[in-house]
């Protein structure tokens, strides 16, 4: 039933009463991101009083111990570094903890009992959000057990949703299997596969930028765009996660999920409306048009790399093979460049160059749209020497903003033409701190909006696209002479050479 008092309350939407159950409550994500995000949502009055949080993990802990721990985390990760006693007490009344093992059926019965008690005590109305912040190998087991305990079936008029963290599978087969397993207990509309990149303001702004402006969309096609570059660079190395990274590599860790989400927003057609299915339909349509990789294409149009010793910010750093948990002869890629094409009317023949890597000179994620050169050059070659084709750069992180690069005449008697930037920076135009991605995504899930979550078809299509690359590289391990780039540089030379062969050049972000 509609709430007439809700209308017009600026920027604030109504969330229904519910209980959030966090699996993996003793983990890092819970204390760094999830509970602080939920606390802020409550303080911003975006969640109702009838709200509860259940932390679930194997560690023995009482409700009170959990509350004390969470209080410390919320204070630590808040700007003020402190929380008010009374306000915390009021929030903490809704915090519960259950010692449980993911594989033990009996623990789910206990959980069901606790949830019913919370429904009675706090009026949470049977609405439940299960957040699986556990190792990927437990996803299927947790969902299966929830299903067996009858916890995945919503009662009349209520809802049950499950958020699944990344990585979603480690290859196409495992992703399909996982989808199959969770679909045994859950309907697709209940599944929220989180990709925190989609919670970022600038990623969401891509939709606004493309479809709320009249001047860009007419140019957004093969007639005006020469090529697109997407850079997703990290300055950090594997940060002690060498063991995990050995089984992953940059294609699995970054490209297949985060970069493809961004890519699909750049390549998609305008949706009919902003409903979650309409937006996600267009994204998958675009990705379906992505040309499949063959071994020949991988060889000619993709580059893999692995960092050797080098330096970042002036400090020496070890090579990947010297990192803890990494095999001394590892062939895991820490850098990858992919050349992608979308075989459709909009993008036929336009290359999308993607690169992602660790220990690159700085942390930056950006999309650069390079437009074609003017059809006829009025100005002489010497005058145009310093001019590059027009570029539109959408910076996702850090220093979020949009830059348009165009040529102007340098003032003076002699005609000289130079590039200038027209800049928009979130920080200068709005001066506001952008909301934490997890806050937005958690609230969206509680509100039942899955636009910013990955759908089943998208996760599987992501794997479908990268599998031939991963297979080819796995089969030709000996061909890569790793390490092939120094930490603190923009990746292997082969990535620059590939661009040069195509008559282009990587932008220096």
């Amino acid at each position, binding site marked *: *039933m509609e*709430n*007439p*008092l*809700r*209308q*017009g*309350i*600026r920027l*604030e939407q*109504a*969330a*229904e*009463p519910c209980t959030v159950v966090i699996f993996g409550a003793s983990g890092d994500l819970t204390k760094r991101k999830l509970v602080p995000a939920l606390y802020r949502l*409550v*303080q911003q*009055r975006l969640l*109702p*009083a*009838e709200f509860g949080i259940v932390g679930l993990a194997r560690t023995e802990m009482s409700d009170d111990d959990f509350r004390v721990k969470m209080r410390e985390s919320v204070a630590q990760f808040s700007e003020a570094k402190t929380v*008010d006693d*009374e*306000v915390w*007490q*009021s*929030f903490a*009344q*809704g915090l519960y903890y259950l010692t449980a093992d993911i594989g033990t059926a009996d623990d789910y019965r206990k959980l069901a009992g606790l949830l019913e008690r919370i429904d009675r*005590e*706090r*009026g949470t*109305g049977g609405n439940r959000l299960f957040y699986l912040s556990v190792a990927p190998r437990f996803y299927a087991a947790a969902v299966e057990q929830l299903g067996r305990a009858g916890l995945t079936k919503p009662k009349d*008029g209520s809802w049950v949703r499950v958020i699944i963290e990344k990585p979603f599978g480690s290859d196409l087969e495992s992703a399909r299997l996982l989808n199959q397993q969770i679909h045994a207990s859950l309907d697709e509309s209940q599944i929220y596969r989180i990709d925190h990149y989609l919670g970022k303001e600038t990623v969401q702004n891509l939709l606004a930028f493309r479809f709320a402006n009249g001047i860009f969309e007419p140019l957004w096609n093969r007639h005006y765009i020469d090529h697109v570059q997407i850079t997703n660079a990290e300055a950090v190395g594997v940060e002690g996660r060498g063991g995990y990274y050995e089984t992953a590599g940059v294609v699995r860790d970054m490209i297949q999920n985060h970069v493809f989400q961004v890519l699909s927003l750049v390549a998609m057609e305008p949706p009919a409306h902003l409903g979650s299915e309409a937006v996600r339909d267009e994204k998958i349509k675009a990705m379906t048009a992505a040309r499949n990789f063959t071994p020949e294409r991988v060889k000619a149009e993709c580059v893999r790399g692995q960092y050797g010793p080098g330096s970042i910010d002036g400090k020496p750093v070890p090579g990947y093979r010297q990192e803890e948990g990494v095999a001394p002869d590892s062939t895991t890629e820490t850098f990858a460049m992919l050349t992608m094409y979308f075989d459709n009317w909009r993008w036929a023949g336009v290359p999308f160059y993607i690169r992602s890597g660790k220990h690159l000179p700085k942390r930056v994620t950006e999309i650069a749209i390079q437009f074609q050169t003017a059809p006829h050059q009025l100005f002489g070659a010497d005058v145009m020497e310093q001019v590059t084709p027009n570029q539109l750069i959408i910076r996702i992180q850090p*220093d979020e903003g949009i830059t348009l690069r165009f040529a102007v005449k340098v003032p003076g008697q002699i005609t000289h033409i130079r590039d200038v930037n027209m*800049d928009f*920076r979130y*920080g*200068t*135009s*709005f*001066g*506001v701190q952008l909301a934490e991605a997890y806050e937005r995504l958690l609230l969206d899930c509680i509100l039942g909006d899955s636009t910013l979550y990955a759908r089943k078809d998208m996760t599987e299509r992501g794997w479908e696209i990268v599998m031939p690359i991963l297979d080819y590289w796995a089969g030709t391990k000996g061909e890569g002479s790793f390490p092939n780039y120094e930490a603190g540089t923009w990746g292997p030379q082969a990535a620059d050479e590939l661009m040069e062969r195509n008559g282009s050049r990587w932008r220096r972000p």
Partner: protein
Amino acid sequence: MWSGVSEGGDASSKAGVTRACALNLLVYTTPWDDHGRLEDLLERINEQHPGRTLVLVAYRDTATPRLEGYVSMRCRLLGGTGKQICGEQVTIEAGGPLLETAATAIAPLLVSDVPVYLWWKDIPHYEDKLFDRLAQMADRIVIDSAAFDHPYDDLLRLSKMIDDKSRRMRVSDLNWGRLTSWRTLLASFWDVPAYRPLLDEIDRVTIKYRSPQDAPEEIAPKALLLAGWLASRLGWEVVGTAVGKATRGTEEGAVCELRAGDRSIALAFVRDETAGPDDVIISTVTLSAKNGAANFSVAKRTDGSKLETEAQIGSERSVGRVLAYEIRTEAAQLSRELAFLSRDAIYEAAVARVAQLVETIRNQKTTP
């Protein structure tokens, strides 16, 4: 001014100055305003909404013609980059016969193609020509109904002004912004499906408020706006006459009768005599249904730092909660208003109901 900046200083500062302009902020103020405080406030506004600020200081009490202007600029360092983001300020002091024409000195100074906000930082002079001229230049007018020195008269004039379609004014009221927390918390009761039917059975609303200092006999505009909002959103019609001055325990107040179909709703404004910080205007709002069988209340702690909510249905009490109430600075309040440009239809409807309430209360007072 800007070429001076780029020529002076060392190479690093030259490279680092960026002018940014997201809006024109036109501030109308008086000589007796605290200008030091205003400068601090504009400094903070410029951080969030860089742009051109035009301050018009109006000397209304002098017959001597006066029109003086000076220019300054305002810069801040952009975190971590060493770059400075700068905007400029033009201050114009006008008095005597030149005050009325000051608007023509301002018009050419507005940066084109970015919105113009007029912040009317004074008591309302809504009928005068200067206001009219400045308002015509503005895309949105920011006022503060908490500063009304004759709340009833001023609210009626405000309502008339908004209602005058030929003027097509879009108004932001800082006092309305201060009600957002109250409105959000009151609205959130009805997000609970089990409570929702009770919204259509409300029969009494009690708003406890502190009287305005300038007009202790009148009800605080903030309390009236909250009542106007409830009445307009819930389709409660103000019945022509008030049912009389009510006494409830030791508390005194006015009671208005409202109607939704066959249902009668008593709207009681109860004066809160306890002392507290200046910004605590509303202390409690209670919505009751079924003759007091269900009560939904939001209360502000005496020290103004927290809000407490509670729902009680029969003998059952729901989960109450305590939330921090961030006392927003005037700069933060204004900054929030500068983010909106469109018409606020909910506010306009609330003001229209406030006008009806004020007329009803006045009639009741004049009726023996």
